């Protein structure tokens, strides 16, 4: 499969502190790639660096185009949907407005249909349509964030710890939906997770990040069998 996103020698900084030390990875078109690692390994920073949200150095080629150094909004318009850390809900706005915002940079007329399609994945959102988004539960906000990012009609979806803070049942449901979205829409995904078990079940390729460096990579299935990973991250 051709690579949709290719990252080479990517370093990122918070102020003067370098927190990513030149990592290389790729996301295949139509595939799901997982970035695994403990807290503070640099997973969220990697996603932020791709979207131009932190100071970074290195090469980022997306869909055949170098996007490093571009503004966040330009990268979004180029086709990267980002479900950020903390869900990024527009708390003061209604659920409907949150959804419309997802599609706000699109010029086409298919937004209504797309929102309908989102209700297919997340029926709860239809019930909550008029409600202020800040009143949604954590799981509902996570679904809203995914729907919002998808409404951009991105080529690549970045997901930052979608399981964070959610009940196990909801997490399972959500990952099933993500798998469906990947299948039905051929949506390429780069997913960051602490819950390696879940992520490896969804992903076809995975990278293991440790203190800003890639320690290991391979097919998701192989990674699951890897003793070191099992021991450190899967807990069995």
């Amino acid at each position, binding site marked *: 499969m051709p690579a949709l996103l290719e990252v080479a020698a990517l370093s990122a900084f918070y102020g003067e502190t370098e927190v990513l030390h030149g990592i290389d990875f790729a996301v295949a078109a139509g595939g799901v790639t997982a970035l695994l690692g403990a807290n503070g390994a640099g997973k969220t920073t990697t996603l932020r660096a791709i979207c131009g949200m932190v100071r970074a150095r290195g090469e980022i080629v997306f869909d055949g185009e170098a996007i490093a150094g571009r503004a966040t909004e330009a990268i*979004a*318009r180029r086709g990267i949907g980002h479900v*950020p850390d903390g869900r990024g809900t*527009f708390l*003061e706005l209604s659920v409907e*407005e949150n959804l419309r*915002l*997802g599609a*706000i940079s699109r010029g086409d007329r298919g937004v209504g249909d797309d929102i309908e399609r989102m209700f297919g994945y997340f029926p709860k959102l239809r019930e909550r349509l008029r409600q202020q988004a800040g009143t949604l539960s954590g799981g509902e906000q996570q679904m809203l964030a995914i729907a919002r*990012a998808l409404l951009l009609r991105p080529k690549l979806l970045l997901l930052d710890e979608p399981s964070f803070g959610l009940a196990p049942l909801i997490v399972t449901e959500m990952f099933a939906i993500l798998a469906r979205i990947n299948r039905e829409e051929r949506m390429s995904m780069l997913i960051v997770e602490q819950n390696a078990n879940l992520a490896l079940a969804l992903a076809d390729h995975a990278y293991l990040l440790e203190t800003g460096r890639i320690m290991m990579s391979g097919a998701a299935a192989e990674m699951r069998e890897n003793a070191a990973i099992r021991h450190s991250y899967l807990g069995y």
Partner: protein
Amino acid sequence: MQALLHQIFSGIATGGIYASVALALVMIYQATHHVNFAQGEMATFSTYIALTLIEAGLPYWIAFVITVAISFVIGVVIERVLMRPMTEAPVLSSVGVFIGLLLIFNSVTGWIFTYTVKAFPSPFPETSRFLGGWASPHEAGATAVTLIVLALVYVFFRFTKLGLAMRAAAFNPVSSRLVGIHVGWMLALGWGLAAAIGAIAGMMVAPIVFLDPGMMSGILLYAFAGALLGGIDNALGAVIGGFAVGVIENLAGAYLVGAELKLTLALIIILAVLILKPAGLFGRAIVSRV
């Protein structure tokens, strides 16, 4: 009774002016958490532009539209040039820059247009058969203009894509960028709109209070009072607050403190709100009480 009604209606008319300026203040506050101390001076400058255009022979409403457009551009330019580097700046720096702007606008206005008090024309007839004496035609007309402006602003923010993008950028700039909104330009547009609304308020109040470079300082004070009363993070609240302080000012001026202490009354309202209900009547309680 007639006198009381007249006072109330006058209060609503000036309240509309306060409401407009309060709305302009709140729009900038919501987006940047800065209070534009120069909002009044900017509006005065715009009003002088209008007077210059009218004196040059342009029909009133054409001068009106051109003035609003010019003010919009001035607002956008100020945001792009001066305010952009201030996004992350501490309160002292931002307050300082706004005070600097106030000084510059005030002086440049005096410099170009002199400090003499000037009359400003009203687009509305001198007398009217319809209003029966409890409101002057200008008051009625200015109120109508204000209400139309407020309604347009509401429709714009509530029902247009651009309005939604601007609200999103004000509430959550990070998420806005992630959906492709040009947040910087939204802020600039907000400044433009605020300046345009201020300009309209200036043109509506100038026939009542006459035009001089310090014309808006008292009005700005009442707009502060209105914005705080309604809740400085709540646009609708600020508009209601603006009307309310207009009525309070007129009634208190007529029956309580007299016209001499009108500004002091605004100060008292501001202090009372800040002390008793810092979030305002309709605001969310997010005032930093350190």
